[in-house]
């Protein structure tokens, strides 16, 4: 059966052998053929030696969730042969390095095993152990190119661009491509029926990961202070911010940096640095993951109560505790929503893809300044570290940062008296002042009990007045945060409600369910607190499948807590094994629930 532009390739390698550049070359070449593609990296918490996989899904329909089945396996790691062989769909192909023949291990009758002596060829052609290992990976890209009809000219151009300043590397890479390509052409019938054909679907699109997009968003939002403690999978966010700053934020006159990145001693300090900076009027952020949020708890509550802006990016990974640091999950929803002791709740933003990471990062800074409170944007490892196809990022030239209610020296000069926590506008948001502006603006920022004038208090009524006013602000936030994305038809009485990176799997599942005559509506929340559209959506349906990537149904809990949704209506579909959710899983679970309903 031929499969044109609709198949999946999985590449099994050993961590630390340089397969990332080979895999990047493969995906980008397919992208440049105009074919929608997504690459997902499954890597260990390790620098060298453990197994790692890269999954490429070619999808003419533009589906970006993980594929449910593998058509072509490149098995470069003998440790995982048996597991890898079992992943292949019946009728599929397995390609392995036949320098060491392993026909006894690779014995599935319903697949085709193609042996290519990659190591042997590279050892003969290249000098140096490291080069030989690296080139073996490039050689499998060459072999694949012949098998799936990947355009060699595109690969050549891409390599020339990549190694523009290191011509000798371009040549050795091209040689390695040829080794794989020529061997395959000579020994097997090419191309396979599972193959590529040029399309025109990737024009005006890019391939970018969410952490890069977020880092770029921070630069465009005007953030100047970034504090962090390295933690997978958020580290590349600060790397991206730093690299963009080095390109766009150097003062041309003095050569000085118009940014300050502080690698803190821990996450407690990282969030403290952010709060010190926003107190002084800078836009500041910290990227982290779940364990970092746990450590930041005390300061997050402080910022909520003392009303300081902060932007926190939580690139979620698999918990609890250290969990699986290189696997994905959406397991910090409840943690972030109510981080810290006492009555606290926080505004959360949920991007579903790198494009949204860029725009939401900017929105996060505006909301933090407007609401004078921490804003947490929750992406995850799948969004943050994998390249996704996105429309070109756009910038509105008229954008100006909204710094919120900050009084200037002139404002203060003309005022009788400034009171920090006075709700003069009735929206629950007080006015603030920045240090160094004017003596009349001085106040004491504190996490201890304070009254609306900003003075210390242990008076019950004064204390309560302030925490009640924070609830007014909470409801103001509800109307300011991004509205959900809703697909609605009045003919459907059931729906899926979900969040973040589940989006691609659900969109694909909805299409495929519809083909089976199961019509469902869809609501994807983009923020917490939930705005009124979410409540209305829930009210309109008899049954709602809440799809999320954690064990405990955290989004479902938030819906019950925040908009008083009827728990009986909300049926959890939970995916929490650490791998990104896919459409097949959603379809199976929905059908299972429907069958259950019929039986009952």
């Amino acid at each position, binding site marked *: 059966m031929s499969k044109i532009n609709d198949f999946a390739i999985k590449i099994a390698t050993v961590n630390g052998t340089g397969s990332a550049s080979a895999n990047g070359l493969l995906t980008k070449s397919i992208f440049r053929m105009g074919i929608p593609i997504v690459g997902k990296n499954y890597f260990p918490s390790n620098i060298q030696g453990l197994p790692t996989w890269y999954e490429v899904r070619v999808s003419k329909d533009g589906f970006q969730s993980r594929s449910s089945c593998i058509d072509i396996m490149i098995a470069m790691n003998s440790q995982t042969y048996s597991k890898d062989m079992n992943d292949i769909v019946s009728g599929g192909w397995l390609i392995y390095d036949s320098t060491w023949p392993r026909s006894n291990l690779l014995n599935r009758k319903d697949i085709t095993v193609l042996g290519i002596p990659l190591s042997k060829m590279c050892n003969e052609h290249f000098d140096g152990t490291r080069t030989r290992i690296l080139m073996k990976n490039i050689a499998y890209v060459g072999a694949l190119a012949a098998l799936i009809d990947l355009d060699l000219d595109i690969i050549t151009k891409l390599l020339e661009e990549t190694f523009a300043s290191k011509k000798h590397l371009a040549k050795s890479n091209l040689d390695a491509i040829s080794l794989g390509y020529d061997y395959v052409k000579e020994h097997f019938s090419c191309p396979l029926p599972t193959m590529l054909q040029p399309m025109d679907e990737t024009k005006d699109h890019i391939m970018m990961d969410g952490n890069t997009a977020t880092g770029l968003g921070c630069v465009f939002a005007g953030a100047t202070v970034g504090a962090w403690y390295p933690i997978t999978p958020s580290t590349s966010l600060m790397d991206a911010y730093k690299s963009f700053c080095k390109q766009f934020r150097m003062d041309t006159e*003095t050569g000085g940096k118009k940014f*300050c990145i*502080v690698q803190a001693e*821990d996450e407690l300090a990282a969030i403290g640095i952010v709060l010190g*900076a926003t107190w002084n009027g800078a836009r*500041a952020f910290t990227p982290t993951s779940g364990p970092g949020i746990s450590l930041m708890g005390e300061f997050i509550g402080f910022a909520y109560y003392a009303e300081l802006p902060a932007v926190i990016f939580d690139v979620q990974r698999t918990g609890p505790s250290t969990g699986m640091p290189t696997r994905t999950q959406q397991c910090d929803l409840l943690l972030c929503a109510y981080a810290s002791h006492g009555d606290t709740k926080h505004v959360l933003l949920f991007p579903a893809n790198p494009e949204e990471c860029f725009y939401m990062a900017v929105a996060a800074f505006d909301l933090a300044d407007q609401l004078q409170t921490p804003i947490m944007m929750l992406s995850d490892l799948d969004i943050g570290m994998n390249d996704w196809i996105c429309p070109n990022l756009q910038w*509105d030239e008229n*954008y100006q940062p909204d710094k919120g209610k900050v009084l200037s020296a002139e404002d203060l000069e003309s005022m009788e008296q400034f009171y920090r926590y006075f709700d003069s506008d009735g929206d629950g948001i007080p006015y603030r002042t920045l*240090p160094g502006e004017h003596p009349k603006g001085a106040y*004491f920022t504190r996490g201890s009990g304070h009254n609306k004038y900003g003075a210390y208090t242990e008076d019950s009524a004064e204390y309560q007045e302030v925490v009640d006013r924070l609830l007014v602000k909470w409801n103001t936030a509800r109307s300011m945060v991004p509205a959900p994305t809703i697909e609605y038809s009045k003919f459907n009485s059931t729906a899926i409600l979900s969040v973040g990176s589940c989006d691609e799997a659900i969109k694909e599942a909805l299409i495929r369910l519809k083909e089976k005559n199961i019509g469902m509506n869809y609501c994807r929340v983009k923020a917490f607190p939930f705005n009124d559209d979410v409540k209305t959506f829930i009210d309109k349906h008899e049954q709602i499948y809440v799809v999320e990537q954690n064990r405990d149904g955290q989004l479902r809990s938030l819906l019950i807590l925040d908009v008083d949704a009827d728990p009986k209506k909300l049926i959890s579909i939970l995916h929490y094994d650490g791998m990104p959710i896919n459409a097949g899983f959603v379809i199976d679970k929905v059908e299972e629930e429907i069958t259950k309903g019929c039986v009952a």
Partner: protein
Amino acid sequence: MPKPIISHPKLPRNKLGLIERDYEGVVSTLCAGCGHDSITAAIIQAVFELDLEPHMLAKVSGIGCSSKTPAYFVSQSHGFNAVHGRMPSITTGANAANCDLTYIGVSGDGDSLSIGIGQFAHAIRRNLNMCYIIENNGVYGLTKGQYSASADVGSSAKKGAANKQSPIDAVGTAIGLGATYIARSFSGDKQQLVPLIKGALAHKGFALIDIISPCVTFNDHEGSTKSYAHTRQFYHHVIDVDFVPPANEIKAAYDDGASMPVELHDGSKVIFRKVDKDYDPTSRAAAFSFLRSSINAGEIITGLLYINEGNGDMHELSGSIDTPLSKIPYEKLNPGKKVLEKLMDRYR
């Protein structure tokens, strides 16, 4: 509680035309006789005499009795009473955003040497430009009298039990970590404190002043090594300094062999008046060995033990521009639409 306003036409005014009262804060709520209140008074005098614009000072603190004190001085400057032990990170961020302000941090021995020792150490490592005061009483006051990490071996608590764990000495730790201005003093010695605070505020980098500040309620009894009586008995004024503001001539007569001026980055000077001619306050090794020998002898040496004006502060180390980052207009921070369009090519 605000203090009543009484002003007298003959009160001395500084260059800004302000009187010392303009640098005061609200009435202290600490116990009568608390050493911390004396330190507050010394801070007020120092900033008044330095002609510091009140709103250009930023006061930061953590949690504990000491950390309450920023409310008691300079009410016209912003204060930040952070969470326990985390004042250094707040100051790091504040300073990263606005390097034009003068930062004074007030902490305690619990705040700095127990819960906050990590942040204390890393602020030193960054050479954060601030004056960091530890009001050191060897005890947790607000929770009623537990030992702190600075309690000396053998010092007994109010209820009689003697401490057996060795103390963390703030000054020794700071020398080890590479702080660039390190002093020790006593809350009861305003003469010595005021120039030390002025020097610390003028120093560009991390300036530590560890101040023995007896807790009259929980640690001022016989057997305590942080009591007024013990401190007065064993304390030695060994390395006093005078502070000379920028552009002022050095007027006092110093014996050349025993005095040494060190110029600070803003042109002001600290003049060391040394007891021992051979002591070099710019040598870390000398400072550490002097400190250790005095501790072994049971003496509390006070004064400016070490100074190093040569190390860059956090901003110099990270290469940020001189303009405070929070003051750069957005137009100069935003790469713009065209840059973004061009950047997209890299991701295809």
